[in-house]
């Protein structure tokens, strides 16, 4: 019974996404681009960088990258924390 409902949920979700997505997302290859076109046009003056993606990553959306670096930092710290050798003997 649970399986049946899970399948139903999955299929309904997929149909929903396919219909909603294909009918409504802009035609493939012609995205709306006010923000992106501004960045493409102005990167070289504002950020002095030839690599537009690099300029977006480190200048226009640099704060996201700081967050992303923090996520990696947190995950590595977390891995080392979880896999640390506890001084006390495990007692489970």
């Amino acid at each position, binding site marked *: 019974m649970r399986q049946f409902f899970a399948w139903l949920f999955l299929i309904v979700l997929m149909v929903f996404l396919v219909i909603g997505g294909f009918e409504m997302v802009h035609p493939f290859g012609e995205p709306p681009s006010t923000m992106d076109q501004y960045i493409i046009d102005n990167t070289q003056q504002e950020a002095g*960088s030839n690599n537009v993606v690099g300029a977006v990553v*480190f200048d226009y959306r640099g704060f996201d990258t700081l967050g992303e670096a923090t996520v990696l930092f947190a995950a590595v710290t977390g891995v*080392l924390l979880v896999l640390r050798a506890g001084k006390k003997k495990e007692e489970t």
Partner: protein
Amino acid sequence: MSKIVRTVANQLMLFVLVFGIYVIMHGHVTPGGGFQGGAVIASGIVMLIVAFGSGHIKNSLRERRLSVVESSGALLFIVVAFAGIGTVFFYNFLVGSRIFGGIPPTGSNPGDVWTGGVIPLMNLGVGLKVIAGLSAAVLALALFSSGEEME
């Protein structure tokens, strides 16, 4: 692993390092950047772990040092971001200055490393962070599953 594998891995590591550093430091001119270059070098370290065994690598790459490198990479990144706070946090204050200050001509051009303002510095910081972080994580996982533990 056998001696052949270890020797080849030893030789290859040099090229991996050179390529990784190239990708990191040309992040603002060509495809690439700190994350990508860092991942390249970290995968080189994973190659060494596979070839030599995690116990052997542990002696040369101590967790403490990796932590220091990782923290300093992250600190370099956030300090460069803080340095712009005279104007606004994350302001690209080096564009037009002496350090990485070149402004490339508009449109298609051959590319110049001495451009980008703070972007190369941030790439460097992120690169250091990713190298140390990913190697520390992989090393910890490898050591733990082979029964040894980090310090």
